[in-house]
């Protein structure tokens, strides 16, 4: 466990690996609201460490055991945190970024604004930061916040999805009701769409076939110059936690490619 002060916030950071440096670093970025670093710590993170990588996980602002400021939740705040944290940790070389859901959006935003510091991006059930994404995400967060004002919502979630999910949702209420996250996401600094054509970083986007995001795979391959996509059948948005035994090897294979060059790289087949 590390408590790391950066940008006026105290971040909860977990690192796996021998920590001696000289190895490639994989940074795992979690999703929004109900998520935190356990989505990796309890699933795929040890596989990366066992395979010889240094692994960095952290709770994003407002999540887990990291500070929850009342304001400052634009996408640029989240990707700015990533830059500050890597500086503080002394991770200077290009890193492999893995992002789950919103974490993939953060990873992609970081990659666009920090050329040379990213070796590859692997997004699981993620979208790039666009105006449409910001409006949709803001609406989802505001809608969740509204629903959670109804005292019947949490019992319904527990009955439908179980106690663990209800605990995560109860935790997220501090963020949804106590901060301006929905408004801030809507007002995010969104990159010009034309800027993506200059993203010289290999990207693998993994989707669950049952997720409504899966249909954006074609569009994404057209938007990003070095993008491949992969669909995991039988799963939806929670594909990372739902089937780590499938997604883990997928992630590891991607990072192991090294990404010195794109051509000839291997894509796992479904």
């Amino acid at each position, binding site marked *: 466990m590390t408590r790391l002060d950066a940008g006026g916030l105290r971040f*909860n950071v977990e690192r796996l690996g021998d920590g001696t440096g000289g190895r490639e670093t994989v940074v795992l970025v979690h999703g929004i609201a109900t998520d935190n*670093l356990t989505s990796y710590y309890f699933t795929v993170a040890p596989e990366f460490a066992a395979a010889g990588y240094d692994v960095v996980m952290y709770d994003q602002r407002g999540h887990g*055991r990291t500070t929850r400021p009342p304001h400052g939740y634009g996408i640029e705040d989240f990707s700015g945190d990533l830059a500050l944290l890597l500086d503080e940790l002394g991770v200077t070389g290009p890193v492999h970024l893995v992002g789950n859901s919103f974490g993939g959006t953060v990873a992609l935003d970081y990659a666009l604004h920090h050329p040379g510091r990213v070796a590859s991006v692997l997004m699981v059930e993620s979208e790039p930061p666009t105006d449409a994404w910001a409006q949709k995400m803001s609406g989802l967060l505001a809608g969740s916040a509204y629903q959670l004002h109804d005292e019947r919502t949490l019992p319904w979630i527990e009955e439908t999805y179980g106690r663990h999910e209800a605990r995560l949702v109860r935790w997220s209420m501090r963020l949804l009701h106590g901060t301006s996250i929905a408004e801030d996401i809507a007002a995010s600094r969104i990159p010009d769409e034309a800027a993506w054509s200059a993203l010289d970083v290999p990207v693998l986007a993994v989707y669950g076939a049952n997720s409504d995001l899966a249909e954006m795979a074609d569009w994404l391959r057209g938007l990003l110059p070095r993008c491949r996509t992969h669909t995991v059948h039988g799963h939806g948005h929670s594909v990372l936690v739902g089937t780590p035994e499938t997604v883990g090897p997928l992630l590891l294979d991607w990072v192991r490619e090294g990404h010195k060059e794109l051509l000839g790289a291997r894509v796992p087949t479904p």
Partner: protein
Amino acid sequence: MTSPATVDEEAVLAEIGGALRAVLDDLEFEDAPITRETRFVEDLDLESIDLVTLTSELRERYGDRVDFPAWFASLELSEIIGLTVGQLADYIVGRLR
């Protein structure tokens, strides 16, 4: 860092209790008796993220002989959420033997 020369389950349970207090120092942790059957999430109201902090704290005490991330990865999420003090102690004792 030094490690205990002999493995004593009572000592491990005491270490877990100590780590719990260290982790929950800034939370509302009542000084309830901790037994082997105590569940971290259901009984002590820990969040799953606190299990990470707790085991990191214990790793500071026991060193590389315990590998909590690998252990967690071998468990189903429901098993992690239902984890008891006794199960954690058994894992530690097993690794230290």
